[in-house]
């Protein structure tokens, strides 16, 4: 036991101390936070827009209703003609001139928006919308509808997406966010298993090619060496994962705070409201932050993270044992190709099917079996989880995975103990089966 701890310690420290590990661990949250920041930034920019001061030159006697200034535009009615104002537009302090000629309310035509700069599509649309609004208001008034009645006509609708669980209680859900979370954690699982599984293989090959293996094996059992390496590297993966979560949360919280503090007061209230996520806002679909935030708060993140950790450890053990066996059978990394395929295949198939079939039909029988078979369950279960998985299925899948990795560790250790002492021989699958059968 002391020996295995020593091996774990070495495998862990030698990797955690590496510059590449430190760099990866620190940079990734910064990149994530950077993206997060960008999204927040653009959503604020989008809400804020640029402020435009527009001079309204109206020759229209029919349209009596006046344009009212909004958040990003102010309309000022001027008593000048288009001809006198045009030359002085750059000095006048106005950004644009809105020219309203005489037209019938049924057929508004000849409206112009002039400026030193070409008006953007957003501004153009907003001005069009504002004019349409006042025309409609005036028409309604003319048909004899009172102002209060008009106000009452306006209503705001927002649909709450709810899912009913087995106990008949409804819970909030959001189809889009569920898919995003499921897919993201599936991809993350795939990457983690692959990256750290291959690290195990590399470690074994390194010990073989540097010829330290025989020295090691005279002090410790091959099984201890293999497990020490697998566990040590698992801890490296967990360290990275936990640091990513902690750092990403910390950086995004700080970043979000900074953005919110900087924003002008009126937007500030809006953004904080959005960030609080509880509020049902109409712009939900157009505001990604609020949307993701809200959806995240609806999903059980603690559960997702803890299930992720379990399936990461289980799936990693399952595959890394196989990678250790491959590493023991070859003399250099270039020879690993033929053995990598059969190990990679189920992982890739699980990955591809999870992202296509499961996201389309998360409760179907393919989804069920993919999330039960240990070869694919770590990825498939993560993709399924946000949609809701019955507890018994989750438990069964976990138990199967535990048996699965005990199985692969056992098979791998039998190949490993022979493989690490074989040099300079091209290994075949037949050979590996023979090694497996060796008594000692």
């Amino acid at each position, binding site marked *: 036991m002391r020996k295995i701890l020593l091996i774990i310690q070495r495998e862990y420290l030698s990797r955690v101390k590496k510059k590449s590990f430190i760099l990866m661990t620190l940079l990734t949250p910064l990149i994530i936070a950077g993206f997060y920041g960008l999204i927040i930034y653009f959503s604020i920019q989008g809400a804020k827009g640029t402020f435009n001061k527009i001079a309204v030159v109206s020759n229209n006697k029919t349209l009596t209703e006046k344009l009212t200034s909004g958040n990003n535009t102010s309309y000022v009615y001027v008593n000048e003609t288009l001809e006198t104002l045009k030359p002085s537009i750059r000095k006048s302090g106005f950004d644009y001139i809105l020219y309203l000629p005489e037209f019938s309310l049924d057929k508004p035509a000849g409206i112009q928006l002039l400026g030193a700069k070409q008006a953007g599509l957003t501004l153009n649309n907003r001005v069009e919308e504002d004019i349409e609004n006042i025309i409609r208001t005036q028409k309604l008034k003319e048909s004899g509808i009172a102002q209060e009645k008009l106000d009452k006509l306006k209503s705001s609708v927002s649909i709450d997406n709810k899912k009913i669980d087995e106990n008949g209680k409804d819970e909030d859900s959001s189809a889009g966010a569920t898919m995003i979370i499921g897919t993201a954690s599936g991809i993350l699982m795939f990457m983690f298993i692959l990256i750290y599984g291959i690290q195990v293989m590399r470690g074994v090959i*390194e010990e073989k090619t540097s010829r330290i293996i*025989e020295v090691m094996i*005279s002090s410790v059992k091959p099984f201890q060496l293999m497990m020490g390496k697998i566990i040590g590297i698992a801890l490296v993966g967990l360290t990275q994962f936990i640091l990513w979560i902690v750092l990403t949360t910390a950086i995004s919280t700080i970043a979000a705070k900074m953005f919110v503090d900087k924003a002008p007061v009126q937007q500030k209230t809006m953004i904080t409201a959005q960030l609080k996520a509880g509020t049902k806002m109409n712009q939900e679909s157009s505001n990604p932050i609020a949307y993701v935030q809200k959806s995240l708060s609806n999903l059980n993140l603690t559960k997702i993270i803890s299930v992720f950790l379990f399936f990461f450890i289980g799936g990693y053990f399952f595959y890394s044992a196989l990678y250790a066996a491959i590493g023991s059978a070859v003399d250099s990394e270039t020879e690993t190709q033929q053995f990598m395929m059969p190990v990679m295949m189920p992982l890739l198939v699980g990955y591809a099917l999870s992202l296509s079939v499961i996201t389309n039909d998360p409760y179907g029988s393919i989804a069920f079996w993919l999330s039960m078979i240990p070869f694919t369950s770590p990825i498939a279960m993560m993709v399924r989880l946000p949609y809701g998985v019955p507890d018994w299925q989750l438990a069964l899948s976990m138990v199967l995975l535990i048996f699965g990795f005990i199985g692969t560790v056992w098979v791998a250790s039998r190949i490993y103990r022979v493989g690490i002492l074989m040099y300079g021989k091209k290994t075949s699958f037949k050979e590996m089966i023979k090694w497996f059968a060796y008594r000692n």
Partner: protein
Amino acid sequence: MLSVKNIVKQYATHRALDDVSLEVEQGKIFGLLGPNGAGKTSLIRIITQITAPDSGEVLFNGKRLSAEHINQIGYLPEERGLYKKMEIGEQVLYLAKLKGLSTPEATKRVKFWFEKLEMGSWWSKKVEDLSKGMQQKVQFVATVLHQPELIILDEPFSGFDPVNAEVIKNEILELNKQGATFIFSTHRMESVEELCDSIALIHRSKKIMDGSVLDIKNKYRNNTYWVEYEGVYDTDVSTELFEVLYRDIQAEKIVLKVKLRAGKTINQLLYALLPTVNIHRLDEVIPTMNDIFIDQVKTKI
């Protein structure tokens, strides 16, 4: 201290060890000899418990070999290496701790050995920055650091320059004086003559000879002598007394290598020569281990 009894080890199509038995005495340096592929490494791997025999047993101080003996054995394999990216000091410490030493004890001993073998400045160097000879020294230290009772060295001098080979040889002799038993696996016979008390010769998976170096050499004396003289002797007498294997004439002197015929003695030889020649030198030809090794391996083919 170590008895190997009737060991058989079979790999798929190849019998690596066939009923091999040998005794290594406490405090001795034992040479395990044999051509490449004879089965030496297989035997060593069984003694170091890397593999297990198919049948037969190994006794360590009278007890059947088990996990408790791992820390009492130090093994320097022929295929040896170190972790390339690890610092030397840390690496030796790690290997020592794997052999059961506590951290402070291990640190103390590593410092002692590094000082002794003038490796003090290597502590925080990486293995990849060391020459092959320097790495060998590090590996030697790692092998003996935990003061094992039995030290197994497989080709320990390969890769050493003559100066460092001498340093290591002296360390081996000193450790031996302090009571450590050694098993040497090598095919460099001159180091066997210098160091080993007894040997076993393994060839084609079988032990074909063993015993103390002195006994074996005596056994292989075959009444052959170098004779250096001036003058002429009676050839009639000589032909029934000895056979001339080699003759060289150097100015006035003649050098002969002669083999006495069965039943004849050195006195008879002298008696026959003395009346007519002046003898300058007369030595017995004692076979070197190298000769015996080659002779044995060739005749068994």
